[in-house]
Every structure is written in C-alpha cells, then in structure tokens.
C-alpha cells in the first residue's frame, strides 16, 4: 500500500468530525496500542470517534483515499488482539454510537448502535420480560458491536446459542465507504451475508447498527452449585448430563485454583478444598424444574459430588453468578500476570482435555487454573506467571501452544468465542487446510479487495511467517 499522508488525512477527518473527535497526539494514542490482549502493542496513527453511520462512512472513504488501514473498536475487551492496530492505521471508536434506537417486543428485536454495551441493553430490557441471550463474562463493558464481531458467547449459550443465533439484521459500512443494510427480514433470494459478517472480527465491514433478537425470559429457573472432590469427577458428570440429553441453560465449571482465588477475594463461602465447583442452571416452566433438577443431581451424585445446593433466593442466585463472572478478575490475586486461553473440544472430551491441561501444567511447570463453559466443551485455562521471569514466560507460551494443539487433536478448535485476532492466527493453518483458508481469503477479497479493514487478523497471509511470541501476557488487573 502507498504510504499514508497523515497530515492531510488528519485535516480532512477533523473537518468532518470536529477536532475533538480525532486523536493524533502520541500521549493519547498510547491508550489504543492494545486491547485485552496485551502481548503485542502498536500505536495507531489516529483514533476517531464518529457519532453516526454517515460519519463512519466518511471516515472509511477518507481512509480509502489516503490508503490507511481501518480498525473498528468497541470497548477493547478482545482477549485475542482483535483491535490491535498492527501496522498503525486509523482506529474507529464506536463507543459514542451507543443509542438503543428501538425495542420492539411484539417482533422480539432491539435495534442498537454498535457501541451499546451488552449490559446497557440488559438494563434497558429489565422488567420487559425479554433479554438479549449472549452474556459474555465481559458483559459489563463489552459492546454489542464487539459481540457481533467475535460471535461472542457466554454461559447461557449452552441452551440459547451464540451471538450469531441472535442477529437478525445489520447495517454496515463497507470498505469503499458505502452503507449496506442486510435484514432484518429474511430474503430467500440473497446469500446470508449477515451470517458471514458475524464473527468476521472487523475484517469485512464495520457494523453501524444491529437488529438483535430478544428472547422471552424463562418462566422460572433453578440455579445449583455442585461441589466435586476432583475436576475429573466434575467434568465426567457434565459430560454424562449432556450425553443423557439434558441441556441445561448453563453449566459452568471452576476448578480448585480458581475457587480458592474467588473465595479469597469475595468470601462466597466455598470450601477452599473443593476440587471443582459447577454452577448449573435449568430454566423453563416451573412445573418441570424439579424433574430436571432431580436428574442432574443424580448424575452429580453418581460422580461423587460432595454436595449439590440450590440457590434459595434471587440474591443467592445473583451471588452464584457474580462469583462465576468475577472468577477471572480474582485471578489477579494469584499471580502478577496471566493469560486466558479459549479452547473447545467435543463435549465428551471435556474430562480428557482437563486431564491433559493438568499434565501440560505439570510438564511445563506452569500453574494453570480453569474455568469452563463446560456444557459446550469450551475451556478457559488461565495460565499464571510472572512476566519478569523470562524462562517462565517461555514455558507459559509452550504450555499454551500445547493445550491448543491438544484441542485440535481432539477434533476441537482453538477459539470458541474470543476470536482469532492476532493471538490465534498462527494456529489457523493447523486447523484448516490451505484450500479452506483460500476460500476465506476469497470472501475477504470480495468485501475488501485492498485489505484495509483490520489487516493482519483472522486469516494468515499466504506467505505469513509464524510470529514468534516473546510474551503471552495478560497483566493482572489491579
């Protein structure tokens, strides 16, 4: 690509957006040098804050004229470096486009701008009897636009599906700056481009509006907390529950390491010696819950559960979920740095992968604690280390690589919900054949022939050298 004439681009962007909406000062740009994936950092050339679809389109057109890369960004909670401005470029912050434009309960959708935080939509819907089903752990900050970009999941995707199952329509700005609306009503004579755009990590277009499906709240639910002596017992019970054809609303596993950290941080009252805690939620008509619960308890007991308790009140339920959602944050107490992985295996391989993760931890002398959307076979091993210790860093990198390779070997994938970004890009050629990646490149080329939208992400270049990582860091949050 020809070099970017930055000065002219800045002038034109300021003229269109107002100077307060264009950042070009290095002291300000440094904030955008990385997202939740902090291993690699690079400052963007510019950061802009459009307030409307039209402004996004103008930004994209100007960037095209000036051959600048365009990196869309929401809350920046990506754990895979999805918003890392790899070669510089213009970061398009969508956080000022945060209006909920319409809530239509009769037709069960909400029309939102991309910068609406997931939690803001949840709060707006409180009392309506409906909710937006995807509930990633970063729910309090992550945006709907980001959820669409990564096809985000969360605990309740077990029963209700991931973001892609809940997007009815999109308005997007294409690489040439044109605006395109897809959906929200089905058109059988068209290709399902919405389905392709969801999970495309900002490499095909920038989402400026989303029509998302609203799901009626369940009639009733029960939330259980099962404690197991070992992770193996817990994962075997989970596997059996799914295998028996019971699909709870959510089934979340936390191993001893994470339980201890959570307990230390928040004093929920978990025995610190529990090998694993599983939070299980069943929902549906109240009359059917006792039966569901009973069957689940039987499976837990068959796998040596020490106790299975039911949340007796709404407060207790909230507390249980809070405990699960705060689990990752609590890891900061265990270690100065950590790296959250995202692997997925066929559900019956859950006991195997957790056993292997334990072995890999021992072999590499790395401490690994686990949370998992266990019913989906989706594990989030958290590798703990001190980034000042270079030897430890190398061992963490090797362990992370090995456990993801094990997911591939089990017939799984290296990301279930965080996305590929830059973090997993080197695994793509292990996961897919050359022709598969070529098919993806063709789609990318169709949308963005100049490759200016979020370059360097998702699909490895033909001749991409495998990036050698020097650090796997996610710095512990204060």
């Amino acid at each position, binding site marked *: 690509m020809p070099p970017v004439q930055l000065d002219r681009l800045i002038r034109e962007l300021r003229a269109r957006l107002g100077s307060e909406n264009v950042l070009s000062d290095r002291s300000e740009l440094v904030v955008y040098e990385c997202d939740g994936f902090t291993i690699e950092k690079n400052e963007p050339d510019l950061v802009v804050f459009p307030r409307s679809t039209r402004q996004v389109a103008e930004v994209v057109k100007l960037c095209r004229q000036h051959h600048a890369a365009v990196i869309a960004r929401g809350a920046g909670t990506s754990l895979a470096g999805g918003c890392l401005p790899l070669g510089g470029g213009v970061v398009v912050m969508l956080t000022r486009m945060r209006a909920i434009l319409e809530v*239509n309960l009769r037709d069960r959708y909400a029309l939102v701008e991309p910068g609406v935080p997931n939690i803001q939509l949840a709060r707006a819907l409180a009392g309506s009897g409906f909710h937006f089903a995807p509930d990633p752990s970063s729910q309090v900050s992550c945006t709907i636009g980001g959820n669409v970009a990564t096809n985000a999941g969360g605990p309740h995707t077990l029963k209700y599906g*991931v973001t892609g199952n809940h997007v009815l329509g999109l308005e997007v700005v294409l690489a040439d700056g044109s605006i395109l609306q897809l959906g929200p009503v089905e*058109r059988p004579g068209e*290709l399902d481009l919405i389905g392709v755009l969801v999970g495309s990590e900002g490499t095909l277009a920038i989402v400026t509006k989303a029509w998302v499906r609203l799901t009626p709240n369940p009639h009733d639910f029960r939330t259980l907390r099962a404690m197991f002596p070992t992770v193996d017992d817990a994962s075997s019970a989970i596997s059996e529950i799914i295998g028996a054809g019971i699909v709870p609303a959510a089934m979340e596993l936390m191993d001893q390491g994470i339980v201890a950290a959570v307990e230390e941080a928040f004093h929920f009252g978990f025995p610190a010696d529990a090998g694993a805690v599983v939070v299980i939620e069943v929902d549906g008509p109240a009359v059917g819950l006792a039966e569901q619960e009973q069957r689940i308890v039987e499976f837990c007991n068959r796998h040596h559960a020490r106790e299975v308790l039911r949340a007796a009140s709404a407060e207790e339920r909230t507390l249980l979920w809070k405990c699960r959602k705060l689990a990752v944050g609590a890891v900061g107490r265990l270690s100065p740095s950590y790296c959250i992985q995202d692997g997925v295996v066929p559900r019956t391989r859950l006991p195997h992968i957790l056993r292997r993760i334990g072995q890999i931890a021992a072999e590499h002398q790395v401490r690994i604690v686990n949370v998992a959307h266990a019913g989906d*076979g989706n594990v989030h091993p958290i590798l703990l280390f001190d980034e000042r210790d270079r030897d430890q860093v190398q061992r963490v990198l090797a362990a992370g690589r090995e456990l993801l390779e094990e997911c591939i070997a089990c*017939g799984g994938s290296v990301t279930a919900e965080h996305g590929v970004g830059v973090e997993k890009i080197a695994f793509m050629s292990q*996961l897919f054949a050359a022709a598969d990646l070529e098919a993806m490149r063709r*789609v990318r080329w*169709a949308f963005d022939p100049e490759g200016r939208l979020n370059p360097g992400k998702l699909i490895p270049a033909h001749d991409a050298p495998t990036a050698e990582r020097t650090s796997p860091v996610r710095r512990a949050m204060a």
Partner: protein
Amino acid sequence: LAPANATPSAEQIAPDQQAGVAEAIRAAAASTTPIYPVGGATGLDYGLPVTRPGLRLSLAKLNRLVDYPHRDLTITVEAGMTAADLARHLAANRQRLPVEVPQADRATLGGAVAVNASGPRRYGCGTLRDCLLGISAVDGRGTVFSAGGRVVKNAAGYDLCKLLIGSCGTLGVITQLTLMVRPMPETSALLAGDVADLAATERCLAGLAGSKLLPVAIEVLAGPAWNDDPLLAPRRKTAAGRLVVALEGTRTEVEWMIGQLAAQWSREGIAAPDVVRDQAAAPHWQRLTEFAVAPGHSNGAPTLTVKICVQPSATLNTIRELFWLQPGVSLQSHAGNGVIWARLPLTQPREWRALLDGRLRGPVAAVGGSLTVVSYPAGLDLTARDVWGPPGGAAPLMRIVKQQFDPQGLLNPGRFFLENS
C-alpha cells in the same frame, strides 16, 4: 406436465467419493460445461428453469454416515444422505434434527441446505443456520474446501456454512455436513383452534410472542388446501382460519402448557382447542411439513406458490391482503416468524404478473418484507426479478462473492438470482 425446472442435461454422473465430485467439476470446468448438482431432485422447482445443457451431478451415492458421536449431540454425514435416513440414525439415540425437510424420503441434506429448507419448528428450534456446524463443498474450480468444525461453538475463521445455506448450489457443491442435533422431547402436542377474526388472532399471537410457554411452532392456516385434515381445517365455516401451536417438553411441562394456553385462548373466544399428542399428531405434522412443496397445479388449476417474509406483527395484515387479492388462496403461516407460504390459484393465465408486481410485492415491500416465487406452472415465462424480487443493495457484493467461488459461472447457472439480476 413436466416440472418447470427440469434439468436440461444429457449427461449424468453420480460419484461415490468427494474426490470424484471434485474431479467431475474440474473436468467440467476445463470444458466450461455447466454443472447441475442434484440430491433427491425434490427442489428442482425452486428458482428459475435452467436452459444451458450441462452435466447433472448426482450426490445420491455420497450418502454415508461419517461420524455420529451421539453423546456430543453432533453428527457428520455426506451430503447425499436423505433427511429420512438422518432421522433414522438419530432416532436410534432418541435425538433429532429439529428442522422440517419436505419429502424427506428423497430430499438430501445437501439439497436441504442449498435451498435452506425450514418448517414450523423454526419458531422454537431455529433453522439450518442454527444447526450447521461444519461444511465441505467443492467450488466451481473443482477445489474442495471446508469451514467450521465438529464442535458446537467455534469462532475460528469466517462462517462459510452460512454462506452456503440457501445459495442454491451456486457457490459450491456441498459434499459433507456436521450438524448439531437435539434430544428428542419426551412428549409433544399440537393444539388447534378456530379463530373468528384476525384481530382476535393478533391478540393471541402477541400473547404468544412474549409467552413463557415455549411453543416450538405457531401456525396460522387458512384456505381450502386444509379442508381434508380433521385437525388443521377450521371446525366452523365462518372461521377466519385455524391457529395451531406445537408444544414440546416433558409430560409435566406439556400438560401445564396446554392448560395455560387453553385458558389464554378461551379469553380470546377460542373454546376448548383440539389437542393431539405424540404419534397421533404425525399425519398433521406431515401436512404442515409438505405444504411448502406445492405443485404448479392443484386440483387442475394452475397455481403460483409464494413465500412471503415480513415482521411477525405484519403477518395477519399480509394474510388479509392475500385473501382480498385472491379469495381462493390457501396458506400456511409460520406466524411467530412472519413467514407465509401461499398457494394462489390462477384463474386467468396472465394474472400472475399483475398479482406479483403490483398487488402483492408492493404491500410486502412497503413493510420491509420479501416475496419469493417458490413454484409456478410450466409455461409461465418468469424472470429472475419475478421470482426473487428486485435486487437489494447487497446484489453487487453477492455477485463478487459468486465470481470468487465460481469464476466461470458453471455451478447451477441460471437458477439463482446471482447472474440474473
């Protein structure tokens, strides 16, 4: 009468390996011969008739079960497997794919994906896009490619499964599929009641939209096509139509839901709905599944069958419009989803154009909806615009996608909108 869209091909081959499919397409590509993929040949009415002679590529022999780790609730099959065979494999483990495929004894899964078959359960269980986890296909160059995987959650790479669903075999010939399946419910029931007028029906539908009763299907049926079904036909001659709801779950849940629903309906003047449970409902499910496959003629009258998609709240107004235009219409509406399948008898041969262009498409487009002609009598000279409607804003982009996967335009040329609009 021959179906309007019979493949005009002289040659047919039926490879029994994916490599054979790729080889055939490479050979055809070398001689720029059009390729017409065929599964069970149940969907050949869909889209425009093809005219260029070419190679009929049958997937019928590519019909094996590849892998069924039933405790993972996933299954991988070759694309030529029939929907009925898949159902048999799954039933052995009390599982199912909750997507209705018409003519399941013949229809293949690859074909179902190519035309995006769906039925009443889409309200509660979604469509193929919610079940398809992985796919393999051969593009117009003869290159095999795969996307997705065999796990239920996967964020690695573009979801090309979605791209191929409903693409009518124009981007690739589908060879293999991995599907997420569901446990079979313990019991199910169909509830049906007469609706006196559309206003009362709308109140029922609005109630169901926010309902915690978890209906898996919400159907509004009307017209003479239902007359010979004892459950699905209205009881009273004065009824505006029949409201049918499907409930599934455990026995306790379903009985409770039936009670709740009957109480709600009685407030809207639907007294004591008819309830049919489990196997007894099978023939009615059959009717609900097969309605979409309407012949170009019914009872000797030439018939135009359309699929209309609107917002759910616009369903009943659209139905009213249909009756006003053609009082003899028969229709099935997945009313919870805003999808209406309508069979319109053509009293005069030239009538279809006036029906489609002005009086039908106009009001549907005005509420943001779409209208697709699903089948029509042989001899009518429909264009791509007639069948699929005017191209939307995405058409140029879709054509570029098409060129990327099939640069010579050899896959199912003429049938889909891509090169016609």
